[in-house]
C-alpha cells in the first residue's frame, strides 16, 4: 500500500510541477472568459452599431404597406429606376439596393438585393423577415382583418417552466439554462476523459520506451504501478478541474463587479432580446425580462452542489473505466504511433456517447435512448452529466453509479491482466489475438 502511495505521489507531482500544466490551468479559464467576453462585447456592439441604409426600388403594387425602418436598418423608397440606382450605388450613401418586383403573394419571387459588399447572413435574414411580415400582413388584410385586430393578435407568451421535485416543491427551471449546463458538462467530461486517459497511455509508453519498466516491476507489482499511475493522473485531473472552477468563479465575479458599474446588465439583456426578436416585427410586447436574465434566474434554480459532485463522481468513474483501457493499450505497444488500431475501439463508444448525448439526450432527456446511454458504462459518464441538469430520478442516478463502479472494476481487472504481460514485451507487433492470449496467461 505504501508503494502505491509513492507511485501516486510521483505521478502526481511530476505532472503538476510541469510548466505546461500550470500554464494550462491558469490560462484556460482566462482564455475562456476572454473569448466569451469578446463574443459578448462584439455581439452587443454589433447590434448597437449596425446601421444599414437601403434604397428600395419597388415596382410592386400589391404591397400597400412599406417596409418599416428602425435604428438598425433604414428603408428608403426611391423613385428612380433599378438600373440607375445600381449604377450610382457606389457614389450614393446607400449601402444596398433592394428590388421588389410585382409578384404573386402566394409565391413571391424575384426579390433582389444589390450591394458593393456581400450582405451578411443576419442582414439577409432581417430583410427577408421584414418582407415576409409585410406579405403576411397584406394577406391578412385581404382576408378582411383590420389593422387594429392584427396588432392585438401579437402576444408574446413566456412559458415559465417549473419542475415538480420529488418533494412536491416547485423548482424554477428553464430548458435553456439546463441545456447550457448540460452542454458544458458533456463537453468537459468528454475532454477530461480523453485528455487524461491519453496521459495514462503516454505514461505507460514512456515507461516502456525508456526501459525503466523492468526496474520498477522488480520493486512493485504491475498492478500497483498501473493503479498508481491511473490514480495519480486522476488527481491531476481533479486538481485542474477544481482550480478551473475556483478560477472561473473568481474571474467572473471580478468581471461582473467591474462590468456592473459600467453597463447596466438589464440594458444588455434588453438589447440582445430586441436583437433576436427584430425579425418578428417591430412592435414587441416585451416580456418583463430578457432571456439572459431568465437564464441567470433559473441557473440559480439548479442545484450546483449536486451537479458538481455528481460530475466529479462520474469523472472519476468514467476516467477509471477508460484509463484502464488506455493503460492496456499503452502496455501493448512500443511507441505512440502504433496505438492507432487499438485507439479506435476505445474512442468510438466515447465519441458516440458524446455525440448522442449532445443531440438526442438534450432533445429528450427522459427518453429511452437517454436512459440506456446513461446506464451503459461506456457512455454513462457523459450521458448522465448531460441529463443531470434536466433532473434525473435518484434511483436511476444510483443504478448508473453502481453499474459504472462495477464497469471500472471490470476494465481495471481486464486491463491489469493485459498490462502485466504487455509491459515486458518488446519489438513484437501486437494484435488483439495476442492481447487476448496475454489476458489468459496464468501469471
Amino acid at each position, binding site marked *: 500500500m505504501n508503494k502505491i502511495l509513492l507511485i501516486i505521489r510521483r505521478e502526481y507531482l511530476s505532472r503538476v510541477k510541469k510548466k505546461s500544466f500550470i500554464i494550462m490551468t491558469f490560462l484556460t479559464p482566462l482564455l475562456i472568459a476572454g473569448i466569451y467576453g469578446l463574443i459578448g462585447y462584439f455581439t452587443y456592439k454589433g447590434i448597437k452599431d449596425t446601421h444599414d441604409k437601403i434604397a428600395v426600388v419597388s415596382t410592386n403594387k400589391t404591397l400597400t404597406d412599406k417596409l418599416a425602418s428602425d435604428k438598425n436598418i433604414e428603408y428608403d423608397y426611391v423613385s428612380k429606376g433599378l438600373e440607375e440606382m445600381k449604377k450610382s450605388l457606389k457614389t450614393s450613401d446607400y449601402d444596398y439596393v433592394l428590388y421588389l418586383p410585382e409578384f404573386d403573394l402566394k409565391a413571391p419571387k424575384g426579390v433582389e438585393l444589390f450591394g458593393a459588399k456581400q450582405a451578411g447572413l443576419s442582414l439577409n435574414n432581417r430583410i427577408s423577415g421584414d418582407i415576409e411580415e409585410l406579405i403576411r400582413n397584406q394577406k391578412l388584410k385581404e382576408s378582411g382583418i383590420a389593422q387594429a385586430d392584427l396588432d392585438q393578435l401579437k402576444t408574446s407568451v413566456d412559458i415559465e417552466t417549473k419542475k415538480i421535485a420529488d418533494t412536491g416543491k416547485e423548482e424554477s427551471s428553464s430548458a435553456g439554462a439546463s441545456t447550457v449546463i448540460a452542454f458544458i458538462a458533456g463537453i468537459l467530461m468528454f475532454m477530461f476523459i480523453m485528455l487524461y486517459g491519453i496521459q495514462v497511455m503516454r505514461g505507460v509508453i514512456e515507461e516502456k520506451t525508456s526501459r*525503466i519498466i523492468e*526496474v520498477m516491476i*522488480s520493486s*512493485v507489482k504491475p498492478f500497483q504501478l498501473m493503479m498508481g499511475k491511473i490514480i495519480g493522473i486522476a488527481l491531476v485531473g481533479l486538481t485542474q478541474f477544481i482550480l478551473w472552477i475556483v478560477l472561473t468563479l473568481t474571474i467572473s465575479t471580478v468581471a461582473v463587479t467591474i462590468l456592473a458599474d459600467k453597463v447596466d446588465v438589464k440594458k444588455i439583456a434588453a438589447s440582445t432580446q430586441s436583437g433576436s426578436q427584430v425579425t418578428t416585427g417591430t412592435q414587441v410586447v416585451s416580456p418583463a425580462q430578457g432571456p439572459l436574465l431568465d437564464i441567470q434566474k433559473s441557473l440559480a434554480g439548479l442545484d450546483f452542489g449536486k451537479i458538481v459532485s455528481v460530475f466529479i463522481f462520474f469523472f472519476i468513474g468514467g476516467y477509471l473505466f477508460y484509463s484502464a483501457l488506455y493503460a492496456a493499450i499503452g502496455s501493448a505497444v512500443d511507441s505512440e504511433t502504433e496505438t492507432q488500431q487499438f485507439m479506435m475501439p476505445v474512442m468510438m463508444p466515447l465519441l458516440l456517447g458524446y455525440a448522442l448525448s449532445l443531440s438526442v439526450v438534450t432533445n429528450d432527456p427522459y427518453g429511452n435512448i437517454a436512459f440506456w446511454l446513461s446506464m451503459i458504462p461506456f457512455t454513462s459518464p457523459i450521458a448522465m452529466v448531460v441529463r443531470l441538469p434536466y433532473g434525473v430520478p435518484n434511483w436511476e442516478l444510483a443504478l448508473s453509479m453502481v453499474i459504472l463502479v462495477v464497469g471500472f472494476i471490470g476494465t481495471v481487472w481486464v486491463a491489469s491482466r493485459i498490462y502485466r504481460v504487455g509491459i515486458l514485451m518488446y519489438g513484437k507487433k501486437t494484435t488483439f489475438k495476442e492481447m487476448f492470449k496475454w489476458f489468459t496467461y*496464468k501469471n
Partner: protein
Amino acid sequence: MLSVKNIVKQYAAHRALDQVSLEVERGKIFGLLGPNGAGKTSLIRIITQITAPDSGEVLFNGERLNANHISQIGYLPEERGLYKKMEIGEQVLYLSKLKGLSTAEATKRIKFWFEKLEMAGWWSKKVEDLSKGMQQKVQFVATILHQPELIILDEPFSGFDPVNADIIKNEILELNKQGATFIFSTHRMESVEELCDHIALIDRSKKILDGSVDEIKATYRNNTYWIEYEGDYNVETAKGIFEVLQTENVKGKTLIKIQLQKDRTANEVLSALLPYVAITRLDEVIPTMNDIFIDKVKRQDYE
C-alpha cells in the same frame, strides 16, 4: 542462499524454462550463461518475482520466495532505463524508497555513493543531459543502494566504457567482499569469467552445465600445450610421449602445439626436447569459458 528447484515456465507454444535447478551459495559470484533467448531472463524474472513459474519453486534463505524478499534483492535488468524528465537524485530516491528505505536514510546513502563514484553534483541533473555511461552509473547506484543480500546484474557491462566498467567491477568486488551475493547473467563469457566463482550454462530452456569455474575448466583441459623454442630442429611426434598438432614459424622462433599421450607429463616433453632446442615458453592450453560455452552449445546443436 538461493535454491531454484525444477522450474518450468511455459509461454503459449514456447517453453522458456524446462526443469531448471540451481544452487547459489552465499557470498559467491554466480555466472548465469547462455546464448540469447536461452531462458536466462525468464529465470531472473522468476527470481525477482516479476513472473511466477508454472511449476517448481524458488527458496530464498530456505524460505519460499515472497514479497518480503523484494527488498533483499537488487536487480539491474538488461533493458534498463530511467525517467527522462526526472532529476537524478529524485529518481534514485524514488527507486530506493520503493525498495523500502526511508527518505533520510536513502538521501544519506545516495550522497555517499554519488561522492564515491565521482557523481557529486549530479543530483538535480536530468537523465536527458547524461551520457549513456553516466546513466549506467546511476542505475548501478539505484540497484545496490538498499544493500540487498542478492544482487542480480543482467549483462552488467554492456554499454560501459572501459574506464567505467573497471570502476563498477571494483565496486562489485568490494560489495562481494562485504558479503553480497551476485548473479551475473550474460552471453559474453569473457566479460565475467574472471569474476565468477561458479557458473551455470543454459541453452534452449535447459541447464546443460553447472559447476565451479575451476572444476569446469579442469574437466575441459585436454593436456594440450604451446611450446616455443629457438633452434633449427624439426620436432616430430615423439613416440609415446606427445603428438604435434600444429607448427608455426614466428620471427625465427618456432611455435608448436602438442598434446600429451596418456599418462605423460609436461616434464617428460621438456626432457625429450631439451637436448636439441632452447625452449623459450611453455603454456598449458586452458579452454576459456567462451570455448567451453561454444563447444557445449554446438554439441547440443549436433545432437
